[in-house]
């Protein structure tokens, strides 16, 4: 296959950046999208040009490292597919393809197609854990969890933190990510004691990072490679309102003193 690829090139965070057009020749239709970029990079290096920087790691759809907005859709817009699992057979010979980084103020571009997703780490650090001293792993079935609850917790826990939800959202909102992280703990008994505090802390961290607000377009749900449902956002909204209404000032003071 021969392709015309428009790629975002940006030297560093301070550079304004621009779209650059490349011709890629002899792409195997069984190659993944990332392998097509590898081929393009080899052609660029052979010509003495800088290779295009893009994120990738496991290349089997589970690490959450690959990104790329392809033809205006995160991960190329195929259902439950990450960019590394997107194959060139979905494209036509001679097609024009636009490749851009995730676009969000909270995800600044580091170089070309690589963005800094540490804002997600800050949200997790704010409350995405259970702070009980759990000791060694409990015996199987020692903590009873109904199958349906376990399934829903697992569905939410499938989030790989890639950021496609933020990239897809017209408002650059991270609510699907944050809500998934909250839901996977709040579906389980271990998540209950810190439920209100955790929800408040993670939503506050999300707002502080400069993500936008949900306008209920559900572009995030369509873009999610792990098919996470917008139901988790409704759950987060409900929990956050309950946490705010039931917030006790003395609790946070006591905690600060301790």
């Amino acid at each position, binding site marked *: 296959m021969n392709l015309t690829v428009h790629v975002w090139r940006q030297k560093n965070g301070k550079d304004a950046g621009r779209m650059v057009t490349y011709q890629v020749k002899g792409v195997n239709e069984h190659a993944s999208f990332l392998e097509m970029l590898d081929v393009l990079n080899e052609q660029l290096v052979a010509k003495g040009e800088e290779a295009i920087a893009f994120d990738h790691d496991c290349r089997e759809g589970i690490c959450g490292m690959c990104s790329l907005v392809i033809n205006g*859709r995160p991960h190329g817009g195929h259902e439950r597919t990450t960019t590394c699992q997107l194959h060139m057979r979905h494209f036509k010979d001679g097609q024009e393809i636009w490749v851009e980084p995730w676009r969000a103020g909270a995800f600044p571009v580091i170089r070309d197609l690589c963005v800094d997703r540490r804002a997600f780490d800050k949200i997790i650090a704010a409350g995405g854990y259970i702070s009980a001293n759990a000791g060694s792993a409990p015996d199987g079935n020692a903590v009873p969890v109904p199958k349906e609850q376990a399934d829903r917790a697992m569905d939410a826990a499938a989030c790989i933190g890639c950021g496609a939800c933020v990239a897809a959202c017209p408002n650059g909102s991270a609510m699907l990510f944050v809500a998934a992280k909250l839901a996977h703990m709040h579906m389980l008994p271990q998540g209950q004691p810190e439920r209100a505090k955790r929800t408040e802390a993670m939503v506050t961290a999300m707002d502080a990072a400069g993500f936008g607000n949900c306008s209920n*377009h559900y572009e995030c749900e369509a873009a999610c490679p792990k098919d996470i449902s917008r139901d988790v956002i409704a*759950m987060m909204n409900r929990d956050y309102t309950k946490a705010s209404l039931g917030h006790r000032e003395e609790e946070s003071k006591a905690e600060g003193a301790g």
Partner: protein
Amino acid sequence: MSWFVGYVRSSVGAKTIMAVTGLLMVLFAIVHMIGHLQMFGGQDMYNAYASFLQSLWEVKWPTRAGLIAVFVIHLVSAIRLVMMNRAARPVKYAKYTPARSTIAGRTMALTGLVILAFVFFHLAHFTFGGVQPEYFHLPDGHGRHDAYTMFVRAFQNPAMYGIYFAAILLLSMHLAHGASSWMQTLGLRHPKYPWTDKVGPALMVILFIGYMAPPTAVLLNVIKLPGA
């Protein structure tokens, strides 16, 4: 009260404000529409209804004050959210392909501003009598303000009909997205009740038909002036 300020400023809290104020205005829109459907009941019924509303000053003024407050809060909150959302994506995509969002959803800010302009026009027209003053202060023979004749005269003018048609269409579009969104925003949306996503589109059709039925009947000469 610090928790309340924090809540209102947060992303989730600001959206709750939009949902609650929006819902209150939707309820008003439904009641207002039902009121105007009484145009089909004739001059006496409509004028009696209008004069009944005007006589309830204990209800009228608190309702007006409440509506203005709700409207202003909705507007201010919307402006703040739109600005924050624009700031969250400083560099736009060269190519962006929406997958699931609707035209109604993506144009909420625009249709909202048109509705704001329309509300001013509508108040100037039927509340303050500034748009067609010649039809505004007519008595109806029972010592009541002849709201019926005012309504008929207004929509016998095709240009006036056109303005209301366009405004009601955009208002319905705005509510198509809003009336489906509020349950999700308040966290009430649940897979057990999948029909909640259809509330907005259904309300859009009901409000558009309900609001445009009396003016359309006037334009088609089904609703006529008394004695005409």
